């Protein structure tokens, strides 16, 4: 009787990581709301920048993670890769939703609209839609193993389409410039010292927090696979 359920115990976020998440998020929160100077032009609502942009960068990180995990899954058909992809996609979608919401909160007072078809926002929104499709496919895709394959293919097709989506949206905007879009202070370039530091804190906090949630979600995925394996094991023992 092959004991195939001796899977290593499901990973849990180490206390160090949880601690790091607490410290960095508090630090980021404090610096974003207090330490960083008020933006002369946009006022205090600009502080949302320290949450909005780091979260967006973290989602791009999640997209890369899901893409690599999907490729590896199709090559090895090892369920562990599929678990990484599932967890990355779900937390990535959560971060993406946060980016869109904070973006809207920031855009309303500054540009007078909850949403503008700014090139970067539009590209981001399309990627967010693909993540929604990924999570939907995850639940409607049918049998476990088929779902894993389909989601892997979807994430690969979505990923290879990113550059072309970027250019299509970019040219679409620049060819017809809409309301002059305030550049969001660039990605840290040309930011005065204290703002740059706050931005860095925000980024670190976002990535560390993402890692925590990602591992928690991964643990759930591993546990549910473990229950399946044990059920299969019990099923086999009944019959032999």
């Amino acid at each position: 009787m092959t004991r195939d359920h001796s899977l290593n115990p499901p990973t849990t976020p180490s206390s160090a990581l949880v601690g790091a998440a607490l410290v960095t998020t508090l630090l980021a929160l404090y610096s974003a709301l207090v330490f960083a100077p008020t933006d002369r032009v946009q006022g205090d609502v600009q502080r949302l920048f320290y949450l909005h942009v780091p979260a967006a960068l973290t989602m791009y990180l999640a997209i890369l993670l899901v893409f690599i995990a999907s490729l590896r899954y199709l090559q090895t058909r090892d369920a562990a890769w599929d678990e990484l992809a599932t967890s990355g996609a779900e937390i990535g979608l959560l971060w993406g939703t946060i980016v869109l919401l904070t973006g809207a909160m920031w855009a309303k007072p500054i540009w007078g609209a909850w949403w503008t078809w700014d090139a970067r926002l539009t590209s981001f929104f399309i990627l967010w839609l693909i993540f929604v499709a990924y999570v939907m496919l995850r639940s409607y895709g049918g049998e476990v193993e088929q779902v894993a394959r389909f989601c892997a293919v979807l994430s690969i097709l979505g990923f290879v389409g990113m550059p072309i989506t970027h250019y299509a949206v970019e040219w679409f905007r620049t060819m017809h410039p809409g309301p002059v879009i305030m550049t969001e202070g660039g990605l840290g370039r040309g930011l005065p010292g204290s703002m740059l530091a706050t931005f860095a804190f925000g980024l670190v906090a976002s990535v560390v927090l993402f890692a925590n949630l990602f591992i928690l979600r991964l643990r759930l995925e591993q546990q549910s696979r473990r229950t399946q394996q044990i059920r299969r094991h019990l099923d086999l023992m009944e019959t032999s």
Partner: protein
Amino acid sequence: MPEPAIKISGLSKHFGPTTALAGVDISLQPGEFLTIFGPNGSGKTTMMRIIASLSRPSTGSVELFGQNIRRAPAHARQRIGFVTHRSLLYSSLSGFQNVHFFARMFGVDNAADRAREILSAMGLEHRMDDKVSTYSRGIEQRCAIARALVHHPDVLLLDEPFSGLDPDATARLQTLLAGPEGESRTVILTSHDLTYGAKNADRVAILTRGHLGFTANVEQIAEGTMPDIYREHTRGNRG
């Protein structure tokens, strides 16, 4: 010992919590005919689909004439004829058009004549030009068997081929299997029907809950004891 026609080693397949196959080993010499009995849900169809390269095993391998089918799947499929519960035909095309299409896909030369020949061998001379959607279950099964044999496969995988066949069609299939179409071929036939299954067989096996519980040469089984052996091996089975 010449290379086995089919060598299945450590074959297992599970779908989430359920295990369809839990370690099956079979080795068949060219021309050998193996019948596998087993109740529904014993993993017969899953195993046949894996051998036919339609499905990927969780563990284990299938070798056809010494070559792993996953290494050269297209080449392996050229030599396999597969019959299963679904006919794999197109309802809005006629029997002839279906079999002719498959003949061309398998690169059979003068595909049209060969298609007509095999369809007639299955007693479909008068029905081959009707649409498959007009066929009864038995006629459709005959047409499916014709599709599986049209390219002179070396290996025949017949998954419960007799189900839905009337006596005449059953007799035709058995004569076909014994005749020029069948005798030089390696055959695995699965069935849960003890009367017809073992008629052409050299060896018999029983598959229960994904295990091969019993295998023996036909000569070793005393006349008429098959039903008792079968009952004994499938006793604790919910299938």
